């Protein structure tokens, strides 16, 4: 764990000194701020739905840009060789990298906390959906980060890593839409709905906390991290 934290800490410092992280965070904050204000001004509603909707899609688009570097660059520079010959388990490398990515996504989301602050100062929103919505958006970011890390382990080219991450994220975001076309096969439709990130996220934003949803989101993250470890292991065997 000490090793994972050391690697995670190093990643965080790298993020905070890289222009990419600042540009991505700026775009995210500007865009979500716009939708939040629009919702507030036009609909005159003290709620965060106007933020949570676009924020999820923005995360889907921006997370690959934050994660593409994590392992692809190590492979390109050859520094993965030093990391993998240090007395550190492959799992610790992956978890360390993931901690770094989570910290980045988490701090970006933390910067949006002034939206609910404004709401509570000037209005009287229902605190339940605000809390579960933030849980949802953080878990969603955590899922995208895990997929992005896996994509980054597959190639030494950062652009390719970003595109792969975007592809996987879209797949799991939209699977349910495909499922809704399967009206006549309810089993398949329900399964696809369950495998879809947007289904569970939507529930959390509405204030509904379903244990099955949390289990799915956490399993999704663990599966992606497990695949990343395997992907690194196969690099040794090449």
């Amino acid at each position, binding site marked *: 764990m*000490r*090793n994972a934290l*050391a*690697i995670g800490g*190093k990643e965080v*410092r*790298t993020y905070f*000194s*890289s222009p990419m992280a600042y540009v991505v965070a700026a775009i995210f904050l500007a865009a979500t701020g716009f939708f939040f204000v629009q919702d507030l001004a036009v609909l005159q509603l003290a709620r965060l739905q106007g933020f949570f909707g676009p924020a999820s899609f923005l995360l889907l688009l921006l997370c690959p840009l934050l994660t593409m570097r994590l392992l692809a660059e190590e492979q390109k*520079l*050859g*520094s*993965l*060789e*030093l*990391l*993998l*010959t*240090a*007395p*550190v*388990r492959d799992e610790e490398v992956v978890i360390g990298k993931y901690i770094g990515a989570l910290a980045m996504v988490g701090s970006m989301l933390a910067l949006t906390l002034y939206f609910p602050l404004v709401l509570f100062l000037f209005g009287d929103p229902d605190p339940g959906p605000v809390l579960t919505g933030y849980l949802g958006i953080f878990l969603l970011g955590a899922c995208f980060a895990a997929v992005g890390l896996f994509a980054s382990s597959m190639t030494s080219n950062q652009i390719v890593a970003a595109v792969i991450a975007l592809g996987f994220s879209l797949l799991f975001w939209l699977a349910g839409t495909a499922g809704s076309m399967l009206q006549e096969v309810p089993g398949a439709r329900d399964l696809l709905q369950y495998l879809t990130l947007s289904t569970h996220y939507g529930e959390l934003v509405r204030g509904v906390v379903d244990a099955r949803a949390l289990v799915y989101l956490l399993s999704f993250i663990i599966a992606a991290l497990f695949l990343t470890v395997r992907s690194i292991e196969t690099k*040794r*065997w*090449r």
Partner: protein
Amino acid sequence: MIDVQHVSKRYGGYLAVEDVSFHVPQGQILGFLGPNGAGKTTTMRMITGYMPPSSGTVTIAGYDIFSQSLQARRHIGYLPETVPLYTDMTVRSYLDFQGTIHGLKDPHKRGRVNTVIERMRLDEYADTYIGKLSKGYRQRVGIGQAIIHEPDVLVLDEPTIGIDPIQVVETRQLIKELGQDHTIILSTHILPEVSMVCQRVVIINEGQIVAADTADSLSAKLGGPERVRLLVRGPAREVAGAVRDLPGVQTVEHEATGTEGVDRFLVACRMGRDLRPQLAAVITQHKWDLLELQAIGMSLEDIFLRLTTSEELPANA
């Protein structure tokens, strides 16, 4: 300390390293000599546990690099050929990071970082980003990270490549000093480097060991003036004939110089024979003018040619 037993590595269908075995006892500096593509880097990657061998075993300080990987890796410091450092970190924070993942804890770690910075003479650059350092200084940081946890074994892949001659001399001196507390294996394709730094040499070519010997006896056998270049004013064909008739001369190559009556000859002598006095004598006897006489060391290519095509130097591994 380092024990390599019947190690082979296959990349797809290509056999890059074939049945390589050697042993490096504690405190020894072993030179791993071979031309480009010989399999030096591949062998070192198997020794450091980066990739498992296709067959065979590597043991470091008594631990199998595959089945007891973490224990074995704790005893190794590694400098890869390309010196892959994190360019967005300062020298100090990089060494600190490497110290942490090699199990050092403060305050001991802080002390080690300072010691290494001092030892590698990086004081001036301790807070400089590695990306801004010159190749020579990066090399120093690379060696610094390899020794940060005071490992028993140092694996250095071409540690003097791409740095200027003064720093090459310094680096060789440093490696010799490090040899007092570390067991070292270093790869190179520079023959004299081996005799300067190492006690033992393993020569590898096309994935196979072609010779293993002490550095001294190897350079005695190989380092002699076996090729001599002559510049002579005289009748070219007669000069070549006279030189060729000397006992011990193997071949004589003749090159025109462009100047009428002056010719250059490249004389290859039998292994271990210094024929310079005889060559000088035969030319002055015939009253030709000897303008130049120069001994040329054997190139690595010549050595491989000899080792692989002649019986003169048996591989007494």
